[in-house]
């Protein structure tokens, strides 16, 4: 049984002020198997966040249905952990309380929350920063707190919206490695949004290349490359060439539409 099932999703944003509707997602169908690592790849504004928000339950599709684990999505829930494009930490809580926020909602005692948070804080390499407040963290550190917070939910599905976009090359590589290790250990399903071809190829078991607005799935590419991925190997670069070509064609078509 597929873990995430999108059936004929269309999303129209009604713009009352400008009296114009925006077709953000046009008839997307997609099924993500359990334990898959799907990368959504597409240019800025093509509807990647919108698609992710519909899986998370923050937005409702205008048409079509979303099911996760066989159940129709009708709102956000702790079975789907989300790592946001901005970290979105509670600024009034220290790092460990942010990580354990879910347990606070469940009414756990403070000492137990503190213990449970520690594992995940260690996992993302933030030991020593437990009592820092978000204002005292760098952008990359905040993003890692957001990841730890989503992992603590121990969700079946993890949704990530360009979580590493703000990180430097070295930290990004470390975090990617870490994420793959976590995914292999926890056996969860990941949907990972990115606009970096390399990142998609390093992480995914499959890559969904999206078209520019309105967002559709242009092509689904299965990656059967061994891990850790060799970014200089010929097969990696075959895939990369192929995807870059898709993106180039897409860009050309867009420009022709604009000229016509």
């Amino acid at each position: 049984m597929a873990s995430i099932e999108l059936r004929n999703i269309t999303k129209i944003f009604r713009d009352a002020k400008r009296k114009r509707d925006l077709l953000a997602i046009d008839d997307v169908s997609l099924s993500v198997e359990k334990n898959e690592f799907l990368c959504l790849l597409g240019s800025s504004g093509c509807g990647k966040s919108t698609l992710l928000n519909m899986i998370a339950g923050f937005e409702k599709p205008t048409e079509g249905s979303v099911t996760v684990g066989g159940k129709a999505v009708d709102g956000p829930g702790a079975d789907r952990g989300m790592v946001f494009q901005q970290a979105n930490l509670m600024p009034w809580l220290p790092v460990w309380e942010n990580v354990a926020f879910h347990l606070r909602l469940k009414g756990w005692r403070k000492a137990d929350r503190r213990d449970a948070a520690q594992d995940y804080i260690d996992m993302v390499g933030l030991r020593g920063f437990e009592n820092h407040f978000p204002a005292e963290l760098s952008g990359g550190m905040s993003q890692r707190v957001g990841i730890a917070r989503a992992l603590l939910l121990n969700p079946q599905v993890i949704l990530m919206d360009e979580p590493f976009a703000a990180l430097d090359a070295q930290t990004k590589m470390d975090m990617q490695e870490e994420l793959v290790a976590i995914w292999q250990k926890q056996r969860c399903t990941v949907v990972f949004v990115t606009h970096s071809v390399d990142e998609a190829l390093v992480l995914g078991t499959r890559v969904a290349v999206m078209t520019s607005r309105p967002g559709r799935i242009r092509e689904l590419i299965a990656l059967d490359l061994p891990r850790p991925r060799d970014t200089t190997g010929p097969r990696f670069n075959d895939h990369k060439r192929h995807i870059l070509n898709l993106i180039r064609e897409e860009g050309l078509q867009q420009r022709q539409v604009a000229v016509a």
Partner: protein
Amino acid sequence: MTALSKSWERAVVPLFILATWEVFSRSGFLPAALLPAPSVVLHTWGDWIFGFDETSQGNTGRWLADALSSATRVAAGYGIAVVSGVALGIAIGWWRWVERTVEPTLQMLRPVPPVSWIPLAIIWFGIANKPAIFLVFLGAFFPILMNTIHGVKTADRNLIRAASMMGATEQQLLRHVVFPAALPSIFAGLRIGIGAAWMLTVTAEMVAVKSGLGYVLWDSYYFLRYDLVLAAMASIGLLGYATDALIKVLMSAALHWQHGSTLQSREG
């Protein structure tokens, strides 16, 4: 060292004013009764507080009782205003239907100056604590309410999304996200509110109550005791300053996370 020199800097202006005032009063330019010298005021004030030589006549040694009855009215009216203002403010900010049904009425009442309620307050509650408490409530309620609404409405929607992603119910959202997010704004309202509270206690005591600092102030005016009037004014100023300082302490304790530079919490 620096702290000491800083407190000196702060004292320079008041000391200068007091000294000039003292010299001016003693020069005989005005009749001494109209502008009592600071030393005279201090003497009367001292007697009002400690009751050593009855310069303050019937008020001798009664300062603490007067201050307490004013402070009690402030505490009662302000307490009611805080609880109702914050609760209603959160409801108005969060639920559209509450906003639509309640807010227009409140916005119409808001421009009516609290003092203009005095006649009705006396008719409804008589001459005692209640009309004063009512006025204090009115004065403090609206700034607290408005600031709470503002704080809720400007809460970061993404934090609410993050919390509901972690399974928060609506009640939990209000308690664990919306309320803390609105807290800086709520505190701004609390500080404006405490000023209004003191202002209205004193006003009410001048008209509708027979005790407290405001009553002593007005009563002394009838008896031409301007030294007592000044002592009462100084007492009110001092108490207002002290309560505001207390709120500031609470605020910096509750909002310590706002200072990105706090170093108090290193290692865990």
